[in-house]
């Protein structure tokens, strides 16, 4: 190898060496190494030289060469420069307060909304994760398939738990539970109505980690008539007294002994309960066909605890075998999927028959929210980038001066990255303030639980700060690269111009922001529309002006007649009747046998028990036959009405007169009612029967004449109630509210989407405002010259705003198909859904265009109306 050949040591090696070696030594050592490399290359060849070069890079690592705190001679000047960067950053912020505000506040809004979404998602994901055995706890569910019909149920028959207990190896514990209906609890003279509770056995407290602050978890739920309550209930019932061993009068029937008080639950859970009663307190309600040995009554929750490391598929098969062996209808294919406790809350959205007081989340909502959070952050980040770049043109002189003073590209890049990260961190502080201000309001409005104490926030801070720094860094890359490339002389002469190409990065970013904004507005319109559609869908019954009163069975049987007469005496009240259920999702359920069918061949029907006036009061439409009538004395005992779905389900060609055994009685179908939605509109209408009360219904329906003053009517009702029934709470609600409650999740989603969509629009408009003012200011002179040459104001207005309006148009064209695709998919999840129409797309377009014009007009008008002399004078 000859000397002079262009052979050089590997650049990466040099970089590696520089990365660890102190600056004051690096040069001389590298020089030595390079000299040696050359000599060696000549003597022994390049490969050998390279090899030795790289070896020596590593051999040089020692305390003399490594960078450290104890500087050998001089202090590094990077701290000094850093201080300078800080100073300049704050001077610049002060110099341009409007843009600093837009920049910081915009990002802060974005960050705050992400924090809110983060906590919501965290809350949902954390559901039931606190149970220490959560990975081994499973819920037994059921899927019943026959022909085209498929019924999913989260609840199982009461006989299942005793049958699998001890018979399947690998199952350690089995617990079953049932929700408690709304009951009246009395202590002394005080009565309370509580509906959030369960019947559960003592194994329950072993499987789940609901700890007791008082009482023994082993025995608390062992004996009949025991009740364990939470602290709030204890205080409500007993004040400050020790509740242990005290008695609570249950439904005026029997006394329950308080055997335990819960600690506050360590996290949220899919059970919603204030109290648990021992399972053997449960009495099958009067008139139910089934008892606790039934295999057809899917009204109980069954949870199992598996031994570690068992095959769940085998257990599932074993349970299924037992189920099939006992379940009567062989024509139905039954499977019993096991749902792990950890997946239960978010993964069971498709299941029906949840029963009361079971909360099920929706991963789709979480997904939508995460996407929204990312989009909002993206918009805020783009603003940040665009504005920094735009401002930078004003800072060309500073950059030029820095370069003249010896700053290299890398240093300038470093400066702008530092600046960007500092701004992002400032935004984060503002975001914390915004979060603190808004969290109360938002958690109330949207029913989103948010941490309200600083200590709850603390563990999440490192993550937020890391994300903030990352955003600052990413947003700073483009401005820093762009700015550091200025030529010093041109920069000092202020000849630097932003790129003039038609598709500059700035424009692409702005267009993307608009695409996101339009999409979010469009999507929120569609979501709100769909929710409205569901809540206001013609449900097949009249729900306006209907009041619903909850009455205990005792009071109902004792006072029904008197109450009804009293209420009807008021002229505003047209109808009063009673019913077992009132369209809020629940219904009774039981098997029905057509006349002559074998024991195995039953059909599962939901049912309502209603009084005579029910159809008239709620406006149910008869398709065939008639509703119950006092003229037919047999109706009470044997009358039965089916809905359309039930007729189709049982395959009846001549439904009227059909004899059916149902609820332990031989009944005759006297009428067919049009289908009405008694459950959420997510699901189609299930087969249902209506019968006259065989038990005692606990609900009174009161129809008020439309146009009457509701509050006065309610006052009169309460007065009547208090004179007739002295010792029970007056519990009245609007049926409308009940129905809306079924759509809580959706209403929450539509609220969130609307809020964040508006936020995205605000951010995009803020960014636009900043951008417009810069681009217009850059063209001040051009406008001045045009004016001197006689351009009209209207021409100038068009000239200045054309580009931005085109941008909005293009953004819309791109956004529409995106919105169309994503929302159609979302709508698939609803049985009753709206069709997409032009309004969903045109309206957002008009809104955005309008906002753009308003934003533009301020700056553009100012520029177009400016006196050209002022603009051109300083040339």
């Amino acid at each position, binding site marked *: 190898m000859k000397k002079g050949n262009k052979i050089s040591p590997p650049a990466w090696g040099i970089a590696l060496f520089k990365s660890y070696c102190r600056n004051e*030594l690096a040069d*001389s*050592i*590298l*020089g*030595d190494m390079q*000299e040696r490399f050359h000599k060696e290359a000549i003597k022994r060849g390049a490969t050998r030289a390279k090899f030795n070069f790289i070896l020596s890079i590593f051999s*040089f690592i020692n305390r*003399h060469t490594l960078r450290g705190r104890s500087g050998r001679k001089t202090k590094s000047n990077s701290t000094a420069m850093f201080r300078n960067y800080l100073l300049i950053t704050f001077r610049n912020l002060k110099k341009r307060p409007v843009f600093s505000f837009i920049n910081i506040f915009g990002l802060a809004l974005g960050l705050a909304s992400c924090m809110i979404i983060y906590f919501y998602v965290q809350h949902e994901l954390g559901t039931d994760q606190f149970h220490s055995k959560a990975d081994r706890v499973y819920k037994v569910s059921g899927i019943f398939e026959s022909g085209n019909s498929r019924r999913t149920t989260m609840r199982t028959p009461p006989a299942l738990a005793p049958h699998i207990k001890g018979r399947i190896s690998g199952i350690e514990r089995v617990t079953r539970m049932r929700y408690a209906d709304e009951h009246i609890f009395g202590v002394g003279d005080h009565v309370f109505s509580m509906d959030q509770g369960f019947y559960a056995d003592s194994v329950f407290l072993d499987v789940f980690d609901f700890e007791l602050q008082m009482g023994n978890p082993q025995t608390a739920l062992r004996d009949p008539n025991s009740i364990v309550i939470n602290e709030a209930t204890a205080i409500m019932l007993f004040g400050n007294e020790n509740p242990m061993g005290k008695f609570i009068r249950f439904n005026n029937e029997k006394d329950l002994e308080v055997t335990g008080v819960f600690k506050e639950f360590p996290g949220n859970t899919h059970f919603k309960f204030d109290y648990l009663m021992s399972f053997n307190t449960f009495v099958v309600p009067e008139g139910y066909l089934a008892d606790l040995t039934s295999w057809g009554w899917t009204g109980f929750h069954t949870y199992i605890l598996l031994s570690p490391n068992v095959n769940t598929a085998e257990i599932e098969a074993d349970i299924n075998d037992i189920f099939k062996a006992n379940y009567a209808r062989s024509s139905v294919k039954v499977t019993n999927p096991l749902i792990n406790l950890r997946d239960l809350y978010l993964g069971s959205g498709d299941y029906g028959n949840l029963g009361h007081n079971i909360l099920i989340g929706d991963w789709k909502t979480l997904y939508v929210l995460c996407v929204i959070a990312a989009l909002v952050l993206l918009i805020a980040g783009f603003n940040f980038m665009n504005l920094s770049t735009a401002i930078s043109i004003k800072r060309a002189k500073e950059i030029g001066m820095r370069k003249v003073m010896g700053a290299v590209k890398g240093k300038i890049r470093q400066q702008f990255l530092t600046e960007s990260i500092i701004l992002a961190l400032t935004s984060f502080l503002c975001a914390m303030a915004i979060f603190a201000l808004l969290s109360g309001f938002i958690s109330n409005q949207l029913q989103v639980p948010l941490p309200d104490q600083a200590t709850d926030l603390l563990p999440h801070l490192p993550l937020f700060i890391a994300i903030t720094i990352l955003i600052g860094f990413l947003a700073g890359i483009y401005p820093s690269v762009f700015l550091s490339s200025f030529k010093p002389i041109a920069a000092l002469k202020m000849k630097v111009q932003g790129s003039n190409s038609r598709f500059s990065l700035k424009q692409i970013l702005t267009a993307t922001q608009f695409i996101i904004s339009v999409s979010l507005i469009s999507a929120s319109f569609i979501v709100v529309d769909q929710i409205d559609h569901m809540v206001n869908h013609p449900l097949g019954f009249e729900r306006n002006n209907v009041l619903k009163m909850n009455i205990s069975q005792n009071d109902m049987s004792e006072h029904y007649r008197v109450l009804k007469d009293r209420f009807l005496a008021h002229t505003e009240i047209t109808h009063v009747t009673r019913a077992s259920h009132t369209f809020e999702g629940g219904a009774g359920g039981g098997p029905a046998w057509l006349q002559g069918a074998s024991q195995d061949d039953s059909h599962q029907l939901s049912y309502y028990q209603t009084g005579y006036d029910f159809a008239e009061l709620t406006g149910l439409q008869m398709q065939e036959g008639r509703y119950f009538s006092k003229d037919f004395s047999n109706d009470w005992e044997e009358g039965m009405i089916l809905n359309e779905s039930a007729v189709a389900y049982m395959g009846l060609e001549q439904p009227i007169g059909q004899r059916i055994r149902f609820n332990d009685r031989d009944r005759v179908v006297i009428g067919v009612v049009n289908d009405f939605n008694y459950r959420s509109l997510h699901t189609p209408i299930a087969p249902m029967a209506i019968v006259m009360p065989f038990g005692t219904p606990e609900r009174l329906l009161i129809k008020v004449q439309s146009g009457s003053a509701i509050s006065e009517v309610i006052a009169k009702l309460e007065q009547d109630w208090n004179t007739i029934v002295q010792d029970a709470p007056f519990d009245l609600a609007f049926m409308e509210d009940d129905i809306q409650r079924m759509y809580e999740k959706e209403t929450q989603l539509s609220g969130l989407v609307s809020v964040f969509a508006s936020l995205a629009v605000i951010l995009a408009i803020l960014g636009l405002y900043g951008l417009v003012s810069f681009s217009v200011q850059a063209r001040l002179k051009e406008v001045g010259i045009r004016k001197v040459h006689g351009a009209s104001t209207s021409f100038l207005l068009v000239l200045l705003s054309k580009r931005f309006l085109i941008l909005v148009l293009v953004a819309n064209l791109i956004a529409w198909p995106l919105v169309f695709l994503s929302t159609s998919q979302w709508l698939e999840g609803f049985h009753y859904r709206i069709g997409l129409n032009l309004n969903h797309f045109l309206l957002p377009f008009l809104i955005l265009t309008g906002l753009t014009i308003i934003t533009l007009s301020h700056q553009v008008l100012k520029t177009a109306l400016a006196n050209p002399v002022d603009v051109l004078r300083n040339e």
Partner: protein
Amino acid sequence: MRSTIGEFEEIVLLVVAAQHDQAYGLSVTEAIEEQLKRTVKLSSVHTSLYRLEEKGLVQSHIGDTSTERGGRKKRHFIITPAGKEALIKAQEDRDQLWKQVPKTVIDLGKA
């Protein structure tokens, strides 16, 4: 200040003194390799030089460069008075010990 120096340090210091104004990392390394036929790592010599500098036995300053070095400057080392003292002391110590070695054991003249 520690006045004692190790064997390798002594050699490095000697070479620095020998090359007078022209000593730098690589030149010292090459001198040791060529004259003493010892393989020695560039990094060991550098480390040794820095340690000597810490002890105040040598002083360094930035010097000239060459094309082979890719324009990087040399760090020249010169011996300080303390360094000279240390070398002299080391030599005297040795001489004293040598004198005590009987001619019958090692005869320098015949070796």
